[in-house]
């Protein structure tokens, strides 16, 4: 995850634990983008995602000494943020996820594809938001964050066969949603 010449996660963690609190900014810069995108998918709201990620990162700093394998800081901090998202979601009433402040759709590469592409992405976003939280989480970690099933198991605490089933069902649901509306 780090470019050549940059300190590894383990090195930065060691630096923070040695007393250099400012060094934690390196880890924030490295992972907040992915965490914000992940949390936005889970929460359906950018503001709620920012809260969950900020809370999660502060907790990660406070409990950094308990990160047993600093080389796997990424999965460890993802787990913390995933738990924050679940905690926030558990307090919200169950119902349709509001997409009013959902993440914006990526700009299409070519202007002439703009309308169709944007429409398809909007349908995709809705379909993703309609997935059950555990399926959405599994799909996002696998396909958007590029995690292996082992890493996903470390983040979610679920077994690998369970995670595979969730990802498979999520793929099928997304394809079906696009097919229905095309």
């Amino acid at each position, binding site marked *: 995850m780090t470019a050549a010449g940059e300190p590894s996660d383990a090195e930065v963690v060691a630096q923070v634990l040695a007393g250099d*609190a400012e060094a934690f900014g390196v880890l924030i810069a490295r992972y907040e983008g992915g965490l914000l995108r992940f949390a936005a998918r889970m929460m359906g709201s950018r503001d709620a995602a*920012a809260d969950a990620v900020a809370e999660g990162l502060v907790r990660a700093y406070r409990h950094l000494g308990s990160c047993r394998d600093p080389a796997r800081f990424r999965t460890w901090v993802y787990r913390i943020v995933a*738990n924050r998202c679940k905690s926030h979601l558990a307090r919200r009433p169950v119902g349709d996820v509001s997409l009013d402040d959902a*993440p914006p759709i990526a700009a299409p590469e070519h202007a002439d594809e703009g309308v169709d592409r944007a429409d398809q992405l909007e349908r995709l976003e809705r379909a993703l938001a309609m997935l059950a939280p555990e399926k959405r989480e599994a799909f996002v970690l696998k*396909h*958007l964050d590029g995690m292996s099933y082992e890493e996903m198991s470390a983040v979610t605490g679920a077994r690998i066969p369970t995670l595979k089933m969730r990802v498979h069902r999520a793929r*099928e649901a997304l*394809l079906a949603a696009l097919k229905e509306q095309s």
Partner: protein
Amino acid sequence: MKNELDPRIHRALDGELDPAALDAGERALVARLDALSRSLSAVPAGRSVAHRVMAAVRRPLATPIQRFRRWVTSPQPITVSLRPVYSLVIAVLLAALLWRTPEGPKPVLGAEEGVAQFVARFPEAHSVAVVGNFNDWRPGATPLSDDDHDGVWDARVILPAGQHEYMFVVDGERWVPDPMAGRYVDDDFGRQNAVLLVRPHRTQQ
């Protein structure tokens, strides 16, 4: 189910099957899902939270006294049932919170570890140990201590999260079940073991 994809497609997407082994239609579906994922990934992350986080990082932690005062005055009720028995034994389950305090460094816990606190009152004892399946039932492995000699022995032990069976051994020879444990199982040797549940400390984050 009509929405189910061929398992080979899933395996290819999971990196377990070479897409070249699929037929053209299947490869097209794999390519489509890859493209959908890339589309979803290419979304701006949103406003950075770095300044909020670093402001909290730079804020000094509450002192132990302040944290204890906050805990004591919190609205959460604490129920402790004390039974009038000769040996007052209390086993309290704790999940560890890792804070820096002036008292020194904290042990590093794994994600699936927690801390159990064993407390027992044996005023006449010379030694007390806790034995269980976490230390091969060997009394010498996990002694309790009574540093101020008030007859109350205690130890904090890092254990894997989950269930553990245990007893106390007094003066190396008297095996005492924990009457305050609240959870028991027959030990198959004519006695009962207490059952301890350890929560992973990460669940406190």
